[in-house]
C-alpha cells in the first residue's frame, strides 16, 4: 500500500502543477504528478526533487534512502504540454545519475512518444561540443584569422589591379548604366550633407581664428586661416569622412547582402568577375566624385568662414574674398585634390573589401558595414598624415 505522500507545496492551488512522492512497498517510489503542467504555469523545479527524495517526512513516511525504482502516478494530472515532457526528461536523467530504475510505463502514451522521439534524435557526442575554445585556441584562431584576412586583402588589391587594367583597356565587364547610377548616388546625392558639414566647419574655423586674431588686430587673416586650412586639408578630410559614413557603408551593405543572397556566387558561376562588375564601378565613381565634392566643400567652407568674418569680425565680404584669393595658390588646391582622390579610393576600397569579406548572415552584413566605416576613417587619417609629409618634402606646400 502507498504511504503518505511527500509533497513540494501543500498550499498550491488544485490546478497548479505539483509533485508528490509515494513510497512503494517494494523499496520503490512513485512520483505523483498533479495539476496542469503547461508552459504558462509555474512548474516545480527539477533541482528540488533530489532533496525531496532524501528528506522524507516527519510522519515516518520517509522515502527509502536509495530507492530501487522510480515510477509515476498520473491520476491527478489534468493537462500537460512540453513543460511536463522536459521535467520527465530531467527525472530520467536524475534516475540514471543515481542508479535508480526508471519506469515510465504509467506516463501518458503521447508523452512517452515525444520523449522517445527526442531521445532517438540525440546526435553523436561530438555534436555537443565546442561551446567556446580555450584562451590558447582563441589566440591561435585569431592569428590564423589575421593571416587569412591579410591574404584576402592582398588578393582583393591584386584582383583590383587586374580589373583596373581591364578597365583602361576597355575590356572590363560592368554595366555602364549602373556606373552612372553609382556616380549619382555617391556624388550629387551627397551634396546636401557635404554642404551642411563644410559650411559649419568653415564657421567653426572662422570663430576660433577670429577670437585669437582679434587680440592682435589681425581679423582679416581669418580669411587666410580658413581658406588655407579648408583647401589644403579640411575640405578633402570632411568629404572623405562624410563619404565613409554614407557611401562606404552603403557599398559594404549592398555587396554584403549580395554575398548573403549568393548573388556573388551566381556572378562567379557565369564567369563574371565580381571585382569588375561590382567593385570597379564603385572605385571609379568615388575616385571621380570625391575631388569634385571636395572642390564644392572648399567653396562652402570658405563661405562659412566668410559668414563669420563679415558678421562677427566686421570685415567686408569683398575684402574677405580678396584676402582669401591672395592666400590660396594652385599648389594648395592640387594638394587638396590629390588628397581627395586618395580618400575616395580608400572609402571605395574599404566598403567593397568589407562587403566582399562579408559572412553569410544578416548579422555579418551589419559587421561588414561597421568595419567598412571604421577602416575607411582610420586609413583616411593615416593617409592625411603621410600626404602632408610628402607634400612638404616635395615642396608642394610652400
Amino acid at each position, binding site marked *: 500500500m502507498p504511504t503518505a505522500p511527500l509533497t513540494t507545496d501543500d498550499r498550491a492551488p488544485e490546478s497548479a502543477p505539483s509533485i508528490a512522492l509515494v513510497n512503494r512497498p517494494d523499496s520503490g517510489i512513485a512520483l505523483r504528478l498533479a495539476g496542469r503542467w*503547461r*508552459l*504558462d*504555469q*509555474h*512548474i516545480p*523545479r*527539477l*533541482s528540488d526533487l533530489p532533496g525531496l527524495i532524501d528528506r522524507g517526512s516527519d510522519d515516518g513516511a520517509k522515502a527509502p534512502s536509495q530507492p530501487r525504482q522510480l515510477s509515476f502516478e498520473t491520476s491527478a494530472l489534468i493537462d500537460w*504540454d*512540453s*513543460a511536463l*515532457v*522536459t521535467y520527465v*526528461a*530531467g527525472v530520467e536523467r536524475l534516475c540514471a545519475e543515481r542508479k535508480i530504475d526508471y519506469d515510465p510505463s504509467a506516463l501518458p502514451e*503521447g*508523452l512517452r*512518444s*515525444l520523449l522517445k*522521439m*527526442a*531521445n532517438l*534524435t*540525440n*546526435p553523436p557526442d561530438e*555534436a*555537443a*561540443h*565546442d*561551446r*567556446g575554445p580555450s584562451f590558447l585556441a582563441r589566440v591561435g584562431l585569431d592569428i590564423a584569422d589575421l593571416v587569412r584576412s591579410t591574404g584576402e586583402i592582398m588578393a582583393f588589391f591584386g584582383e583590383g589591379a587586374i580589373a583596373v587594367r581591364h578597365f583602361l583597356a576597355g575590356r572590363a565587364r560592368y554595366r555602364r548604366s549602373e556606373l552612372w547610377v553609382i556616380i549619382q548616388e555617391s556624388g550629387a546625392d551627397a551634396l546636401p550633407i557635404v554642404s551642411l558639414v563644410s559650411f559649419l566647419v568653415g564657421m567653426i574655423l572662422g570663430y576660433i581664428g577670429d577670437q585669437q586674431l582679434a587680440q592682435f588686430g589681425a581679423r582679416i587673416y581669418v580669411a587666410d586661416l580658413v581658406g588655407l586650412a579648408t583647401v589644403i586639408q579640411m575640405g578633402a578630410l570632411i568629404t572623405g569622412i562624410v563619404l565613409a559614413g554614407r557611401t562606404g557603408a552603403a557599398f559594404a551593405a549592398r555587396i554584403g547582402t549580395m554575398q548573403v543572397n549568393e548573388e556573388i556566387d551566381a556572378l562567379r558561376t557565369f564567369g563574371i568577375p565580381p571585382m569588375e562588375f561590382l567593385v570597379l564601378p564603385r572605385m571609379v565613381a568615388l575616385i571621380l566624385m570625391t575631388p569634385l565634392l571636395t572642390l564644392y566643400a572648399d567653396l562652402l567652407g570658405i563661405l562659412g568662414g566668410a559668414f563669420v568674418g563679415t558678421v562677427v569680425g566686421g570685415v567686408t565680404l569683398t575684402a574677405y574674398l580678396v584676402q582669401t584669393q591672395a592666400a590660396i595658390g594652385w599648389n594648395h588646391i592640387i594638394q587638396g585634390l590629390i588628397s581627395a582622390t586618395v580618400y575616395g579610393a580608400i572609402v571605395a576600397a574599404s566598403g567593397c573589401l568589407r562587403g566582399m569579406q562579408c*559572412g*553569410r*548572415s*544578416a*548579422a*555579418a552584413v551589419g559587421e561588414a558595414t561597421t568595419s567598412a566605416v571604421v577602416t575607411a576613417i582610420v586609413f583616411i587619417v593615416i593617409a592625411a598624415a603621410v600626404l602632408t609629409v610628402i607634400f612638404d618634402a616635395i615642396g608642394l606646400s610652400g
Partner: protein
Amino acid sequence: MAIRLKEVALGYGSTIVQQGLSFAIRRGDVFIIMGGSGCGKSTVMRALTGLLAPRQGQVFLQDQSLWEVSEEARTQLLRGVGVMYQSGALWSSMTLEENIALPLEQYTPLSKQQINELAEYKLALVGLAGFGGYYPGQISGGMRKRVGVARAMALDPDILFFDEPSAGLDPLSARRLDDLILELRDSLGTTMVVITHDLDSLFLIGDDAVFLDAETHSMLTTGHPKQLRDHSEIDEVRAFLRRGES
C-alpha cells in the same frame, strides 16, 4: 473549427492573389494547402497568421474573427499560433538555443534553467540536440529549417503552420519531420497547416486539403488528398496529385 475562412479575397496593391476562399480547418487535423507555383499559398498563410489583412471576407481563428477583434485580442489569438517559415527565418544574432528561448522568456513564467531545458528538448525533437550554442550562420540550410520548426513549437501552439517544410531536406530528415508533425498532432492535439508540394508527404500526413489555382485566383476544391487524387472531377487537381498522369 480551428480556422475558418468566409469569402476571403487577398492581394497586394492592385494585384488580386486569391478570392472567394471559403474553407474550414478542423481542430487536430493536418491540413494541406496545395497548388501550382505562384497560386498564392504563402499569401494565404500570411493571412491566416495575421500578417496580411484580407481585402474582403473574414478569417476566423479559434472561432474569433481575426481582423474584427481588438489589436490586443488579435495578439493574444496569435500567441496560439506557431509558424515555420520556408527559410527558417532565424534571428541571426542569436544562438539556436536563444532563438527558441526568446518566446519562452517573453510569454512564460519559467525559470532560466527550465527555459534552457525546454530549448534543448525542442532541438532534440528536430534532431539537433547539442547544437544549441551554434549560430544560424554556422549551420546548413536544412538544419536552419529544422530549428525553425523547433522555434515554431516553442510555446506548444494550438495551431502550427509549415511553409514548405520538406523542401531542401534530405529524405530521412523530411520523413522525420512528417513523423514529428503526426506525433505532435496525436500527442498534443495541435492543428497543423502545411504548405507543400511534396506528394509523398502530403499523402502521408494530410487529413484534409485545399487546392488553389493560379489562373482563376481561386480555390478549386477541398478534400482528403488521397480522395482528391483518386476521385476528383477536376483534371488539374488529379494531374497535380498524380505527377502529370491524368
